[in-house]
């Protein structure tokens, strides 16, 4: 790839630039994984939470005493436009959740409200307040709760994480550009003599610049490969460390892990982070070497 007219491989930058760009690529991959995951999570939670409405109906005085009213309420729920599924939350499961706090017996005897999860294809367009008051005629104290409030916080958080990832990516690019510019300027002044000979025998600036570009690209790709590989290893390590806990903790972590990008598109995006760093380094090398050459006598 390099013709070797200029002995760039012995420059000080040849020792530190691959490492530096490797570290940059490491962060570029982590940042883009972060951005991709949170982007996916945001989309998924928009769907999952934005489209679920919980209906809470107060406990019956005696078990089964309000069965007709309850089935009428269920019919009303099923008739809501856009509804996909109606899931009655098992009350014994609610009792289980409370058991650690109240003790198993007390929890079992407690008159727990009946819970229904209403799944919609998209965030429901129904007027939920009006629906709550209609239910309230059947069951005073019935509550209809959309998860939009909580969801909007989560969505904001995931957006923030996504923005953070992209910011880190941009900073990594900026730092790579600065590193490359300094390295190239140093190299140009080290090789002033050879460059002037090349000029004297008719080399264009572009010919000389291509030598530097190829050198920087080679270093960036070498660094990028190592950095990218280490980043993927880090991610795999994190995933492995989280996996056991993920099974019995709340939903968040499995969702996070489920969000670990597995699709081709995501991997291509992640693999392109080192490529992007290399490409940016390559462009930076060309522009800075041309700039430095223009300051020299041709």
């Amino acid at each position, binding site marked *: 790839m390099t*013709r*070797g*007219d200029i*002995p760039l491989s012995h420059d000080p930058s040849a020792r530190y630039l691959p490492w530096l760009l490797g570290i940059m690529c490491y962060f570029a991959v982590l940042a883009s994984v972060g951005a991709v995951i949170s982007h996916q999570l945001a989309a998924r939670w928009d769907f999952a939470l934005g489209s679920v409405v919980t209906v809470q109906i107060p406990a019956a005085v005696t078990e089964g005493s309000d069965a007709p009213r309850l089935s009428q309420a269920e019919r009303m729920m099923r008739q809501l436009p856009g509804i996909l599924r109606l899931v009655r939350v098992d009350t014994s499961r609610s009792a289980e959740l409370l058991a650690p706090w109240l003790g198993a017996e007390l929890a079992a005897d407690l008159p727990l409200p009946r819970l229904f999860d209403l799944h919609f294809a998209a965030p429901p367009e129904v007027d939920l307040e009006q629906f709550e008051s209609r239910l309230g005629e059947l069951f005073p104290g019935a509550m209809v709760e959309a998860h939009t409030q909580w969801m909007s916080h989560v969505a904001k958080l995931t957006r923030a994480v996504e923005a953070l990832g992209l910011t880190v990516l941009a900073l990594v690019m900026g730092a790579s550009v600065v590193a490359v510019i300094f390295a190239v300027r140093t190299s140009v002044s080290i090789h002033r003599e*050879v460059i002037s*000979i*090349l*000029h*004297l*025998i*008719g*080399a*264009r600036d572009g*010919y000389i610049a291509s030598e530097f570009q190829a050198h920087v690209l080679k270093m960036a790709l070498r660094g990028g490969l190592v950095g990218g590989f280490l980043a993927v290893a880090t991610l795999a390590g994190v995933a492995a460390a989280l996996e056991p806990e993920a099974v019995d903790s709340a939903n968040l972590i499995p969702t996070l892990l489920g969000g670990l990008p597995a699709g081709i598109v995501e991997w291509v995006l992640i693999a392109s982070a080192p490529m992007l760093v290399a490409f940016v380094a390559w462009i930076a090398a060309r522009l800075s070497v041309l700039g430095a050459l*223009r300051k020299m*006598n*041709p």
Partner: protein
Amino acid sequence: MIQFDKVELRYPGSPAILSDVNFAVEESSFQFITGASGAGKSSLLKLMYLGLKPSRGRLSLFGQNAATIGREGIPALRRRIGIVFQDFRLIPHLSALDNVALPLRIAGARESAIREYVPELLEWVGLSGHFDALPHTLSGGQQQRVAIARAVIGRPQLLLADEPTGNVDDGVAVRLLYLFEELHKMGTTVLIATHNRALVERFDHPCLNVDGGRVTRVRGPGSRRSAPRPVGSAAGAAASSQQRRGG
């Protein structure tokens, strides 16, 4: 091909090295430039390859005014010129072969052509056993021959050679001058700066002398010995080309 018109050259902060320089170099001519060490021969050549611009006056190269040739135009012009530098200017980390191949690579020649012509030329200048040698492992004379090979490999239209025989013994010097004559026969315009009067005397070529900042023609084309006389104008140049056509 080259026309100097009242050209003056001064390095920053010093008096003029060359002043009121007027002469023309005809296409396909072969000329010597003589003068004592420090007279300004190298500086004169430097003007001709655009390493310097005249402080005053007008210099035209290949029909272009040197003052109007921008940075972008210089490489194309230099590819038409082969230069043998007094201090060789070989690239230290490249082998003799790669140094000589450089002008071809810069011009985008095919590697097969490079592998064919470069060794041939190196053999011709007597460096058969030194293709892979780095410049610092070669003697001064050997380095000089690498520099000459590099200057002529691209068959330039104009060859500027600065003391090209300064580091070789007389036998080799004459052989190298024959190489320049070969090139000249193929149509290259050759200008050789040297302080070696003896060498100049062995060849029947016109000769310019640099002295006291002035350039004078000491030997016209085709005439073995003639009194120094200034070539002050285009008329002088026309006269000398007339004379050449006549001879």
